[in-house]
């Protein structure tokens, strides 16, 4: 996305590398063929980035697989149209020739770098193998090329990395290795299928910057498949918005963002959480519903001959905060910072040290019956609704389950309550006898919310509850949460890595890093006047869904991530929080 390629006339001059015409992909079902992608056409020029944006199920990944010739046989296949890479039509090539094209002229990187790398082969072996599969170079030459590729993706200590295995690298480094592999042979086309969705925001930032730099260097044409309009705005020259297998709208990025023509594109853009768009929120009560004081959670790591604990994961270190009745308290941080562990400790799923008080009662002091009674005050909604719902129970049974466990009302009343709750969360009562797999992701999350509401709790913990959802669905679920909060006066502990969402819905925010809170305060304090460097980095890393926004280059980090694992008897330095005015606490900078 340099100045030249963003300029429309400059892009026109570049030669065409990929042309897709009338592409239709169908899946064979019992009831006949059903099309997954219908009549899709586009061209891709050298050095250009084309974003295919859309919600899950819109056919964007199927398009990518069709171009790679990797559609799952035999049910899914191309039924019409052509895909021209240079002069050859990929839909007509035999598998052997396709195989020689893959990796050399056209490459792909996937969402989850851990599963796309073979865990039992070293990085070097995997890189040299993919190089030697396409070129007749010697092993040493291939190794030299592999080293060059790792240097190109700016991995620190590339020589050592060649001998390392995937599990020794962090998520961001693994994705860099995937990019190195994909670009080692300088393909003309790189397909990136949600390349940063599984990564933390700050890592996402680095990977996107890297992709852009490499594109400028090698002139690779990129097809970027994503649901994140922020990423689209930052990376793409042109955008295709896809819905249920069809291209709804196509145009230059600037044009799509400035004047989207189709309602679908407008909705897609409107649903994107933006910084600074949060509505002012009503005053909340002052009485405390949950109080955490010096909470510590550590997990022993077993090792050695006798399986004794030799080190500890310091997941949560001396965390203290309060949640007031009716407010939304957000806990933000990147994966592994301990935010979910706090949630689990609060509902008693992991043991903790320190004090956790819910409605004035300390968790540690309660007996079994007391703990069961406390469940009625605090509920949790997990990230993945499909995993959190027992697939063998109907939705009606699932929602009534808490009522049944606590013996709250008769079977008929339970069903009536379940029906009522279904309506509250925007589902219909005739869906009560269906099973979770018959619902969409957003609907399933609504079911989880309904189940959490059944006991009329004072506090609901939402642990990344909207992260797995499409943006438009996410927006509607967030709206539902706010309506329910107003109606029932529920407090939310909102755990998220997404600063934009947090900015939109929270009253107070705590930022966590490696098990400790580095900054906490009201929303205005955190977002208006971020003091800790980590908070600033998180806020700056959020992709801005506005192509006209010019981003100042952020300093690149050298890759190593600090670890929360410490040998016994040692631990991280405890941060001291300093009040810099009206409850805005900041850790003293190291």
């Amino acid at each position, binding site marked *: 996305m340099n100045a030249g390629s963003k300029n429309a006339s400059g892009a026109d001059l570049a030669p065409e590398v990929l042309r897709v015409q009338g592409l239709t992909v169908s899946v064979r*079902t019992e009831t006949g063929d059903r099309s*997954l992608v219908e009549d899709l056409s586009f061209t891709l020029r050298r050095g250009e980035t084309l974003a295919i944006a859309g919600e*899950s*199920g819109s056919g964007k*990944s*199927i398009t990518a697989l069709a171009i790679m010739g990797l559609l799952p046989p035999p049910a899914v296949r191309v039924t019409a149209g052509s895909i021209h890479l240079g002069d050859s039509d990929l839909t007509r090539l035999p598998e052997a020739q396709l195989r020689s094209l893959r990796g050399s002229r056209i490459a792909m990187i996937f969402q989850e770098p851990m599963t796309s790398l073979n865990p039992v082969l070293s990085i070097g072996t995997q890189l040299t193998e993919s190089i030697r599969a396409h070129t007749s170079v010697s092993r040493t030459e291939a190794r030299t090329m592999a080293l060059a590729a790792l240097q190109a993706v700016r991995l620190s200590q590339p020589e050592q990395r060649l001998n390392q295995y995937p599990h020794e690298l962090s998520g961001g480094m693994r994705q860099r290795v995937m990019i190195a592999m994909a670009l080692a042979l300088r393909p003309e086309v790189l397909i990136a299928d949600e390349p940063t969705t599984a990564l933390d925001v700050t890592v996402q930032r680095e990977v996107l910057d890297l992709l852009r730099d490499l594109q400028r260097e090698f002139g690779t044409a990129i097809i970027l498949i994503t649901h994140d309009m922020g990423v689209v705005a930052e990376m793409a020259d042109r955008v295709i918005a896809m819905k249920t297998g069809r291209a709804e709208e196509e145009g230059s990025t600037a044009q799509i963002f400035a004047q989207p023509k189709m309602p679908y594109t407008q909705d897609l853009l409107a649903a994107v959480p933006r910084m600074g768009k949060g509505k002012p929120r009503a005053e909340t009560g002052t009485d405390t519903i949950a109080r955490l004081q010096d909470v510590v959670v550590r997990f022993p790591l077993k090792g050695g001959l006798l399986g004794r604990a030799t080190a500890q994961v310091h997941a949560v270190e001396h965390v203290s905060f309060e949640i007031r009745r009716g407010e939304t308290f957000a806990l933000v941080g990147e994966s592994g910072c301990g935010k979910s562990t706090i949630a*689990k400790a609060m*509902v*008693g*799923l992991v043991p903790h040290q320190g004090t956790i008080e819910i409605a004035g009662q300390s968790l540690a002091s309660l007996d079994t019956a007391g*703990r*069961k009674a406390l*469940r*009625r005050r605090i*509920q*949790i909604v*997990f990230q*993945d609704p499909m*995993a*959190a*719902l*027992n*697939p*063998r129970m*109907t939705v009606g049974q699932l929602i009534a*389950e*808490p009522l049944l*466990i*606590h013996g709250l009302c008769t079977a008929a009343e339970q069903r009536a309550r379940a029906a009522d709750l279904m309506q509250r969360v925007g589902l219909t009562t005739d869906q009560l006898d269906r*099973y979770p*797999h*018959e*619902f*969409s992701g957003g609907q399933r999350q609504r079911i*989880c919310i309904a*189940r959490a509401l059944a*006991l009329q709790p004072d506090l609901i913990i939402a642990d990344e509850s909207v992260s797995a959802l499409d943006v438009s669905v996410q927006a509607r679920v967030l709206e539902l949460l706010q309506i329910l909060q107003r109606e029932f006066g529920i407090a939310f502990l909102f755990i998220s890595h997404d600063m934009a969402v947090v900015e939109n819905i929270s009253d107070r925010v705590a930022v966590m890093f490696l098990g400790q809170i580095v900054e906490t305060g009201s929303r205005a304090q955190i977002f208006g006047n971020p003091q800790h460097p980590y908070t600033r980095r998180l806020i700056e890393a959020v992709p801005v869904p506005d192509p006209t926004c010019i981003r100042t280059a952020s300093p690149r980090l050298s890759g190593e991530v600090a670890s929360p694992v410490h040998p016994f008897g040692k631990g991280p330095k405890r941060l001291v929080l300093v009040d810099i005015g009206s409850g805005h606490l900041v850790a003293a900078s190291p």
Partner: protein
Amino acid sequence: MTSAIGVDAARPKGALARLLQRKLAVFGLILIAVVLAGAVFAPLLASFPPDMQNFDGLTIQGAPMPPGGAYPMGTDLLGRDLFSRILYGARTSLIIGVVANGLALLIGTLVGITAGYFRGWIGAVLMRFTDLMMAFPALLLAICLAAIFSPSLWIVALVIALVSWVQTARVIYTETTSLAERDFIAAERTLGAGTGRILFRHILPHLIPTIIVWGTLGISTTVLLEATLSFLGVGVQPPTPSWGNIIFENQTYFQSAPWLVFIPGAAIILLALAFNLVGDALRDVLDPTQRGRA
């Protein structure tokens, strides 16, 4: 990618009704019914008492008679009618296959689910005991047990159950440990559900496919284990027939009178197949996510 394909139109009500929609399951049920009927009505169906040695049941040379004439399945080396012995043998084999195997499944499931859910020292003790049982030769153990108790059909069933629960326990243990880590179990705990409810209402239903597979596999192995015990003299005592001991009694005549081994062998295979077909269908029928798929 997978949008729910509408299946509302064809959703039969009960599990039995759905089971009966599957041809293979119905075939399996019929086979089981035939064996059951044969076992129950053996006195009416059999043309001879199972232990009667017929004078004309052997050739002049003293060899068993091939199938045909008065003996539809031929006779064995003592001139006993094989058809009658197969019918009476079905009683023994069904009891062993269903009772012994069922008991083994029950023990295995209980041990596996308890060890898998609680882990810790309970799990360690239970699983080390299971490993010990696995390492100990099952046959030797069965012989010891059978020698201690005086052999009768029910004791034999119990002995077989006591040696064959270990594999089930191992598999159920592994599955339970992974199920217990799933989010919906965590969700259930945060709702305040008790241990019993989680184990039997939320974990057990997910183990049904495994239990069914091990149960159907176990039918043939337990029937054959009983035969081995009979052969060694600690199983069902002769002259009471069982499919297994018919094979063992006659295996030396395999060359000259193959039907004596083939017929009871085929009976065991058919019984195992029948349970397998029904079990397979039952597994699908009980899984709501499979509903609507033929």
